[in-house]
């Protein structure tokens, strides 16, 4: 597989660059049938398949305990893979861990920093750790892009939470990775800082770095991502382009239970997307809750005109919506 790869052209982050086309052949991340069972037997991930293209911004959306951090840990080598394979830009994360990990930058969920180090030293340390020679110009560019330049000589313990998060991002970018993992970049952060984080991700988009972030806020995934994967109880339930997902999300179903079986859907209802059940005793209408008109009122009127009588009306969220209601409840 690696024989087919194009010679790797290391792209420098924090530099304006056109994004690679979404049809780029080589996925930057390929997760194949990955499962994770922790010691003690807890199965945190079940048969996860995921392909991320170069230059994408991907949001992994799921409630606490869904397995987001576990998936990132498996990619980055922080947890042992139980089943399946993971490739980063064609390199197996276990067999070829050096090449795979050299392409990855990780910003962990927790704000863990060495209190007594300076910003400059800790970011330079990260670059060396990832096997790159000293290059003050790169460190300077990274720090400036994250507006950390005037803090470069500050000790980390003197920085605010938002600044510490930026330092962690700078550390992750110091070796000029091609993929950046941001694990819950806005968890436990106030509104202003959250907006700031969104703009940082927006800037990263310009650099061509592939960004994979996790969140349990739908709005946040919507704000930042090109594509969204929904993970729940260790299963990747779906992966969709953001726009597609948002369209599906606004969907609801209205089921009309009829008095008598209906032979066919009346002609004047042809414009409605109606489904007649097999027993011909219920009609299902699916509609967009976000549209200006849902069409329910006129549907009812037309049914009355046709003399179709009904016993009951049930509305139901699409299965996707149910997942999200679950997400929202989890958040509370």
């Amino acid at each position, binding site marked *: 597989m690696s024989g087919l790869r194009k010679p790797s052209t290391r792209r420098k982050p924090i530099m304006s660059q056109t994004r690679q086309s979404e049809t780029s052949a080589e996925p930057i991340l390929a997760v194949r049938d990955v499962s994770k069972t922790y010691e003690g037997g807890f199965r945190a991930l079940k048969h996860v398949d995921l392909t991320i293209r170069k230059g994408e911004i991907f949001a992994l959306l799921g409630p606490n305990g869904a397995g987001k951090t576990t998936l990132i840990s498996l990619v980055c080598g922080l947890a042992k893979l139980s089943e399946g394979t993971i490739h980063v830009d064609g390199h197996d994360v276990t067999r070829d861990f050096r090449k795979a*990990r050299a392409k990855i930058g990780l910003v962990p969920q927790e704000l863990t920093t060495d209190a007594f180090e300076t910003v400059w030293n800790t970011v330079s340390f990260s670059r060396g750790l990832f096997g790159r020679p000293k290059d003050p110009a790169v460190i300077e560019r990274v720090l400036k892009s994250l507006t950390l330049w005037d803090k470069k000589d500050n000790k980390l313990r003197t920085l605010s939470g938002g600044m510490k998060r930026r330092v962690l991002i700078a550390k992750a970018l110091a070796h000029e990775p091609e993929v950046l993992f941001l694990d819950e970049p806005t968890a436990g952060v106030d509104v202003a800082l959250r907006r700031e984080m969104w703009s940082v991700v927006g800037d990263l988009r310009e650099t061509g770095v592939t960004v994979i972030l996790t969140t349990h806020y739908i709005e946040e995934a919507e704000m930042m991502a090109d594509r969204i994967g929904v993970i729940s109880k260790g299963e990747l339930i779906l992966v969709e382009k953001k726009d597609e997902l948002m369209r599906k999300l606004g969907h609801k179903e209205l089921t009309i239970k009829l008095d008598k079986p209906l032979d066919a859907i009346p002609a004047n209802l042809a414009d409605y997307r109606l489904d007649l059940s097999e027993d011909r005793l219920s009609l299902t209408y699916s509609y967009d809750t976000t549209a200006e008109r849902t069409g329910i009122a006129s549907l009812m009127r037309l049914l009355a005109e046709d003399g179709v009588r009904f016993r009951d009306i049930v509305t139901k969220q699409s299965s996707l919506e149910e997942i999200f209601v679950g997400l929202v409840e989890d958040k509370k």
Partner: protein
Amino acid sequence: MNWHAVKAIYMFEINRAIRTIGQSIISPVLSTSLYFIVFGAAIGSRINEIDGVSYGAFIVPGLIMLQLLTQSISNAAFGIYFPRFAGTIYEVLSAPVSAVEIVLGFVGAAATKSIVIGLIILATATLFVDFQIAHPLWMLLFLVLTGFTFSLLGFIIGIWADGFEQLQLVPLLVVTPLTFLGGTFYSIDMLPEFWRDVSLFNPVLYLVSGFRWAFYESSDVSILVSLSMTLGFMAAAMAVIWWIFKTGWRVKP
């Protein structure tokens, strides 16, 4: 080999040591000076020469070893335990580095620090007693091998420890007694035969003995036995560390 990473970890640890240089040096130098005053001058004047070496000079190698062992273990244990405790270990574990590079960085730095302290104590000793070093190169070899071996042991302890108490426990409960009973302050020839035989099971005896031979050419066991035992401990510690990284014990869930 990812030498940039080895250097990064090594320098990170050395810088941490330099930041706290005062306490790292004052405490071992002070306690060693006290040993010289109490054992060397006060009590030593009433003890005969051992193998033609004055008692004050006789304890010099043992005292250096005592500090070298405790320093190596506690430096290395703290060096790896603290990032585990603070969570910053994630970066090292996610970096393109192998176990060998991680160990070289952390253990190399801990060993460097304790060897430097050993040399400082050696310099301090010259203030209290007169002595010559018969084989300086052997002396350095034992200093380096022992510093590295016990830093490996400290690394293992730092990975195993669940809290700061455990970090102190092993040096306190194991290393200090073994050092005291390993011929630091006496020649095992001075012991009754039974205890002399028991002493031969004490690994520290071989280190102290070899180290003392490098100073005075007098030893409890032959220099080659000392050397091979030291190398044996080193190999055992390396095997344990190899197993730790292979299984991810305590570091990779």
